């Protein structure tokens, strides 16, 4: 059984889906019960992976089954987990029960379908994180899109049709380019299957790399989302039901950044080096731009959505710094963002459920009426701001110190000013919602959080402090895989010459070859180191 643990975990939500089919659509309690039980089981199944993971750079718990052999195409069911995907998988299984629990009273119509879509979504997300076969990855990648489309489109707010369409077409446009690039990559690699590891050492000509990097980068940039491809996100978030927003923010966006770390960068090292200044520029613009826009939002949820764009700008900056601190910081920041922004969306959901409005001006002085809520909101706010001692700090700090060490130094200085802006917009919204006099009569009857709502938040709050005070286990486990990813991606002429001496390289990596022709040493577009 233990050698099938990934499959068991990934597809366990499908069992729940099957069960749900046989439950009458009116027995809401049972439907909810089965859904939550399923996600909890999935979480429990992911625990052996977390505890059984051995800290090294290899893919673990690997499973390999031949799947499709059609003419020249060979697709395999090829899955495995390394330090990069490990925590994202855990984040997914950890977030899902919370998301399901948050729908308890929020969704009263078509509960059955809602739960089914949530569970299908989980399969898609887990599959995308564990897939080592590019074709398999693409299937899961698309699989995520469909349930999300329905979740926003059916259970969303007033403007949901526009929002879903925008979300769907935006993402689809990106995925199509990626699909083409995957196919091209397959043909460039010569006979074989879609095994990702096989593609890592291809040493493609720079021109090819550039086109293919752009295709991948575009798909992932939309998903992240990076400035200027971000406008689908505020719309999708505002229209999505709470659970949808939580999953979207906590996990789906990570697909984009994960895509860079796993695919776009190591597959096309020279191209990604060439585009580093561009991506860093967009990341930094994203941080500042989204923060400024977040500051003036009137809708709390939109504000949180824009803050997501800013946070993910930090992730991108760290990842493209391409050193241990930067990438590890970026990875941590993905987890942190999942926890704190997920929590923020839950918080917005709590007050929306009570007041059916998200306009900041409708609130004020809630601290008095809802002290527990106030405390939780405050902790999450400071986690989002990145206060030392909370998770947000560790990731942000490592990103910044990593990118400062790299050639992205000046970008870092600009990005660091984002720490001021995040305090401005988060504290301002907190003040306007929670502080002041409770003068809106509609708010005088508000009830504080109930036991279920507190129970939803507690795991997130615990993680905020655990990851802030003791991030060591997280960093330690991802470190070897990150080292390896950096080694693959960092193709500098001198590194390539020393390459044979490096111990951990994926099999099939042609070593000792000079970097691709046409790659000038110390590209002029780069800020020069030192």
């Amino acid at each position, binding site marked *: 059984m233990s050698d099938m643990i990934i499959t068991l975990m990934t597809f366990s939500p499908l069992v729940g889906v099957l069960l749900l089919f046989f439950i009458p659509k009116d027995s809401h309690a049972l439907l909810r019960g089965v859904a939550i039980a399923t996600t909890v089981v999935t979480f429990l199944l992911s625990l052996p992976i977390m505890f059984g993971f051995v800290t090294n750079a290899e893919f673990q718990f690997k499973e390999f089954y031949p799947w499709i052999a059609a003419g020249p195409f060979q697709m395999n069911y090829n899955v495995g987990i390394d330090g990069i995907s490990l925590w994202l998988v855990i984040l997914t299984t950890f977030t899902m029960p919370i998301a399901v629990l948050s729908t308890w009273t929020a969704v009263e119509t078509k509960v059955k379908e809602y739960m089914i879509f949530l569970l299908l979504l989980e399969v898609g997300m887990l599959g995308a994180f564990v897939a080592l076969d590019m074709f398999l990855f693409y299937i899961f990648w698309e699989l995520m899109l469909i349930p999300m489309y329905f979740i926003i489109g059916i259970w969303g707010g007033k403007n949901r049709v526009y929002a879903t*369409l*925008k979300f769907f*077409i*935006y993402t689809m446009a990106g995925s199509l380019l990626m699909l083409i690039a995957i196919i091209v990559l397959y043909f460039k690699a010569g006979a074989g299957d879609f095994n990702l590891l096989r593609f890592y050492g291809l040493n493609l000509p720079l021109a090819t790399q550039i086109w293919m990097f752009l295709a991948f980068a575009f798909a992932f940039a939309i998903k992240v989302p990076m400035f*200027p491809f*971000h*406008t*689908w996100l*505020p719309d999708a978030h505002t229209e999505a039901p709470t659970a949808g927003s939580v999953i979207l923010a906590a996990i789906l966006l990570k697909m984009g950044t994960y895509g860079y770390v796993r695919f776009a960068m190591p597959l096309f090292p020279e191209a990604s080096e060439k585009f580093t200044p561009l991506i860093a520029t967009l990341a930094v613009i994203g941080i500042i*731009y989204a923060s*400024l*826009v*977040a*500051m*003036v*939002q009137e809708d709390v949820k939109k504000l949180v959505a824009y803050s997501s764009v800013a946070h993910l700008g930090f992730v991108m900056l760290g990842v493209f710094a391409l*050193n*241990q*601190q930067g990438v*590890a*910081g970026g990875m941590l920041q993905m987890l942190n963002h999942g926890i704190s922004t997920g929590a923020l969306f839950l918080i917005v959901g709590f007050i929306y459920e009570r007041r059916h409005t998200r306009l900041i001006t409708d609130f004020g*002085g809630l*601290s*008095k009426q809802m002290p527990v809520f106030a405390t939780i909101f405050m902790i999450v706010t*400071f986690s989002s701001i990145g*206060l*030392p*001692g909370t998770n947000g*700090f*560790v990731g942000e*700090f*490592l990103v*910044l*110190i990593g990118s*400062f*060490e790299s050639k992205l*130094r000046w970008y*870092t*200085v600009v990005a*660091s*000013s984002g*720490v*001021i802006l995040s*305090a*401005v917009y988060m*504290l*301002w919204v907190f*003040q306007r919602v929670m*502080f*002041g*006099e*409770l003068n809106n009569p509609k708010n005088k009857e508000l009830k504080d959080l109930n036991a279920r709502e507190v129970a939803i938040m507690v795991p997130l709050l615990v993680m905020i402090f655990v990851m802030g*005070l*003791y*991030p*060591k286990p997280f*960093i*330690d486990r991802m*470190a070897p895989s990150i080292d390896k990813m950096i080694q693959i991606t960092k193709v500098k002429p001198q590194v390539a010459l020393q390459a044979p001496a490096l111990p951990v390289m994926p099999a099939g990596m042609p070593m000792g070859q000079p970097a691709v022709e046409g790659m000038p040493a110390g590209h002029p577009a780069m800020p020069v180191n*030192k």
Partner: protein
Amino acid sequence: MFENVWLIPLFPLIGFLINGFFGKKIKNEAVIGGIGTLMIFLSFLVSCGVLMQLIGLPAEQRVFEKVVFPWIHCGNFKADMAFLIDPLSAVMIMVVTGVGSLIHLYSIGYMHGEEGFYRFFAYLNLFCMSMLLLVLGSNMLVMFIGWEGVGLCSYLLIGYYFEKKSAGDAAKKAFVMNRVGDFGFLIGLFTLYWWFGSNHNIWTINFVEIKAASHLLPYGGVVTIATLCFFLGATGKSAQLPLYTWLPDAMEGPTPVSALIHAATMVTAGVYMIGRMSFVFIKSPETMMVVAVVGACTAIFAATIGTAQNDIKRVLAYSTVSQLGFMFLAMGVGAFGAGIFHLMTHAFFKACLFLGSGSVIHAMHHALHHGHLHDDAQDMRNMGGLKKYMPITFLTFLVSTIAIAGIPGFSGFFSKDEILWQAFANPYHGGLNIVLWGIGCIAAMFTAFYMFRLVFMTFFGECRINPKVKDHLHESPLVITIPLMVLGFLAVVGGYIGMPKLMGMLPNYFEHWLDPVFELANEYGKEYAHVGHHTHALEWGLMGLSVVIAVIGITIAFTMYMANNKLPEKFTSTFPALHRAVYNKWYMDELYDFLFVNPCKGFGNLLWKGFDVVVVDGIVNGVGKIFMGLSAGIRGLQTGYTHNYALGMTLGAVVIVALYIFR
């Protein structure tokens, strides 16, 4: 004791957790306040133990590092949760836990009957923990946890009366301005880390390791950049120009908070940080000059504003800003020991002053409440003659005022005079020294003036409170007056451990104590020092001068507010514009709104409604519309009539055949 140093921040953390989680259920004020006070007092006891053990060691062995647990290890970056004990941190923990204990005790009385009593004590404990992390941290990142942690607690405590909009605004302002400083701190940290790492392969943020490697640092250059960034951090935390405007607003918090956080401890963090990294700062003559100039300018600038305020706490707030300016002046001229010495004496007398003002406000509030009056309990124009009603508060307040004014024999005299002397005599800034000294002297005169103005307006003259409620004015209870007496006592005698050598009565214990911390910095400073020779006569002379200056300030205050109290009005009517400008704090808040706050909001709106909605979404929706338009056109072809399709097929066939034929 050294091994157990982690207990020092742990006790207040426990207090925070108990009161934070269970305070609401405990309800009993004595228990809540007792726990809070006991916890910080336990820290004080451990700190005493640490100090004793440190004293027992030979001077050069007085450094000890304790790693509690590994925190962030990532690649070559390493930051442990680790504490550093040396003479400097020992002074700081004694001040924080000692003054902290007294203020906790005081708060039991002062906060009596407040709805959020437990919340207050939880925050206060949390603050102490953060402050202790700040001063004990053995690397920059632990210091930074404390650094931001105290900012958080300051935010929570300024916003304690969160229903008041002004409190919420002040809290946010404090945090954001501190964040501006934190930005500088981070960039400074990055710069040092990167420079040592990339040039010497020393990847460290540990103070001891940086000190050991500090000889590698160049003079100026990268050090100037790094230290200026750190100094930006210090200006935010310690309310120096240009980031000082949050501190006067921070008076929205309860008075014990003003005493503990915004006078005695947190705001001195910037001074401490420069002291902690003296061996880096001294390597940049430029930064040293900036620190000294900013300090001197802040000292005089805030002092002028202090002369025109009528709110008792606001006068003290500007006084704090000004006194912090003196400390930075000291750091900037390389008088690190004197700066830390003033930090300590200031903690005594300023805490006493704030707590005294709290006692006054408490009494005023109580009396006004009895009469159902809504007069401002903090406005000195409503006070007067209070010495009759509150003798203990008056005496302790007077003693502390004398101390801050710089009258010989009291603690403030020793430390301030040391700063002024070193500003004059220290060898780093050439001709600028005398200017710095001059500014300091004038600021000292203003200090004596506004402090005695405060004392005269509050405690002397006739009682201006509504006569109806006069009989309800009482001295505060013991729980409030005991801390006042202790601090008042310290405000008198606290200076004798640092008596100038010149007086020759006692050796300057304090300076000797800190010698091991700062001797390396002094060593580095010799590189660009122009040592001049100053006679003892000169030192005596300047000391006498500074006493004269203080007396002049007091005399002016006496003339204006005691002998002839028509004078202030005459003054304001003669120079209305000047008075208005000073009263309105030289319009600094308005300037910041104009320069930063409004443009940021405007720019955000422009980006959102202009760029996001019009440009980006315009393109996105435009593309969508193009496709919809195209499809609308093509849809026209799908008529559903068989003959149309037949025509299409025929035409297609003709085209294909034609292509084949004419190819």
